[in-house]
């Protein structure tokens, strides 16, 4: 997992999997990197070949944290697998998704 600050945007990437085993670690690491200046949290899912309900739970948790700080969570370039899970669970309507 890579976490980068680009101005007021926090970019998170390098996620091959977002599953029950790593979801909580992912959530806490990203929360720790958020600053009051963060306006955008971009989660890059372009390498994510596996996403389960625990991973979705972590994304929702981060979404709530970010919204409370008047910032925005965006999901960047999800793999077809990740996109399919987001659509299946209707979360593509909750998150702002930036497709390739």
């Amino acid at each position: 997992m890579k976490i980068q600050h680009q101005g007021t945007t926090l970019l998170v990437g390098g996620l091959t999997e977002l599953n029950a085993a790593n979801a909580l670690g992912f959530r806490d690491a990203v929360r720790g990197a958020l600053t009051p200046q963060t306006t955008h949290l971009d989660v890059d899912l372009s390498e994510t070949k596996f996403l389960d309900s625990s991973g979705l739970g972590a994304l929702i948790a981060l979404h709530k944290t970010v919204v409370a700080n008047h910032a925005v969570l965006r999901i960047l370039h999800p793999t077809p697998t990740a996109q399919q899970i987001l659509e299946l669970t209707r979360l593509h309507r909750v998150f702002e998704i930036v497709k390739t």
Partner: protein
Amino acid sequence: MNEVTKNWVRKFALDYPCELTSVREAGRQSREELHAAGLAEQELDHWELVLAEAGNNAVYYALEGQKHKPVRFEFYVDDQWVEARIRDQGPGFEMPEEVELPEPDSEHGRGLFLIKTLTDEAAYWRGKGENWLVLRKRRPERETPASEASGPPASAADAALTEQLAQSESTLELMTEELASAYESLSTIFRYSAELAEQPQPEEFARKWLVEVCKIGAADWFVLRLVNENEALKLVVSSVDLTGREVLDMENAGEADVSLEIRAASLRMDVWFDGTLQRVAAVDPLVSVTGQGTGFAHPIVINDRLVGVLSVGRYLADKPFQAGQVSIIQTFGDFLGIQIRNAHFQKQQVQTQLTARDLKIAADIQRSLLPKTLPVLPGYQLVGHYQSARQVGGDFYDAFETPGGKVLMAIADVMGKGVSAAMFAAIFRSQLRAEAERERSPAALLTMLNRALFADLDQVEMFITAQLVLFNPQDRSIVISAAGHPPMLLAGNDGRSQEVEQSGLPLGVLGDSVYTERTVLLPAGGNLLLFTDGLTEARDPEGQLLWLSPLEKCLSQGAKAGRGAEETKAALIAIVEAHEQGIPAGDDQTFLLLAERRTGAKNLNPPKQA
């Protein structure tokens, strides 16, 4: 989910430690195995996710102390279906028919949704200590060359291994099914036990229960008899056969001299039967049911007491019950017996409590009706007596002064027992007191009371016998009016007595009855007695009634001897008690006694001669 013997293309099982990282690894491993079994990428994606969700749940919900046991994944793949079974060691859950998505901001609750959405069939078999989530997904249609599907020929060692695996799989399947059926049985018990509390009809409850038991025990029919109060086996319920008739005729089902059920009851043992019994016991009601079939009669014995007999059977003789089915039926039958007995006992208790409460209320009302003090008349003594029977009736008496220095005496007997009788007595009393505040004659009062009470009395088919007597001490006149009541007794100090009867229908018989009255004079040194029939109908141990004459005699003797009212009252009570010889009274005993007070010398007394 029906189990069908199939030629699996591939079967495999994986055991992984009960932790999140390991079950994820199991998912990856399964994907590889499924890939080798020929699943397409899309199928593999779905299965990998489904297995992750199922595996995570198995980890999340594993009971403490069970986590050392591995989570097991098993797979069965043929060219149409993929079936996966995931074993967990948790408390288990109810698999819902439909799983809905949680609110969008909920961080949990999507796992089961994904499982249900991405598979075609999902079942959850709960067992003791372990549960199996069974998931099936149809494989997409595809064109496959026949040669590819058959695969390479297996070696002899492979074949032996496959055979061994198949055997252990089928054992496991049997075990799983048994666990599932044990769970079903338990849940049936709990469901019906809960229902019994609300089910007022034990017959209906028993029928529903036994239909379930028959299903579980694979029986075709049942007959349940319970022991009734007369220690006889009463037919409670029997199953409805395919034609919709009761298998046993409810009217003529208990006449048999020779009965398998009676044998089971007296031996306290299961009695088995089959087609050969027909010759032996042609009159047995069960034989007519079972014909050539097979079955058994099971006595339900609880705490050494016979509660009833449950008989079950199959129409075909060549399908005997298996040991497991027999024990299920026996256990359920015993359990049902306990439930019915408990329900019966509870009902009895409630009834006893209700009756006791009813009687207490009635007794309280009754006591409140009796006047606390009676009018004090110069030159006279007035005393009352009320003795309630075991079951409180509706007797009461009253006496009060009315305008013009007169005394109105009333005695009444409401026909009926308990609270309702006491209520009518109370109404009668308050109406009487209200109406008598204005100067009215006894006949006018009765006419009025009858009109006021008729509708209520008529509705509950009760009536009141009553007698109203207005005594004027100034002129010794007695005006009497009566509504179906026994006569009034008068006795003078000359030793003579008389019954004064005034006819009239009881209150509550005819709405427009008009009552009449007449006037008599109190004899010199006289006693006047109003009473209810509980007094004259007191019974001795042989059932003989006391009747009127002993009372009349006592009254005239008292008058002649110049006894006071209290003394005569005690004598009257003594006569009744002597007659009853300790037999409890069947009805209330009530009287009201007016006695002219003796003041000093006898010759001063009779003002009539003055």
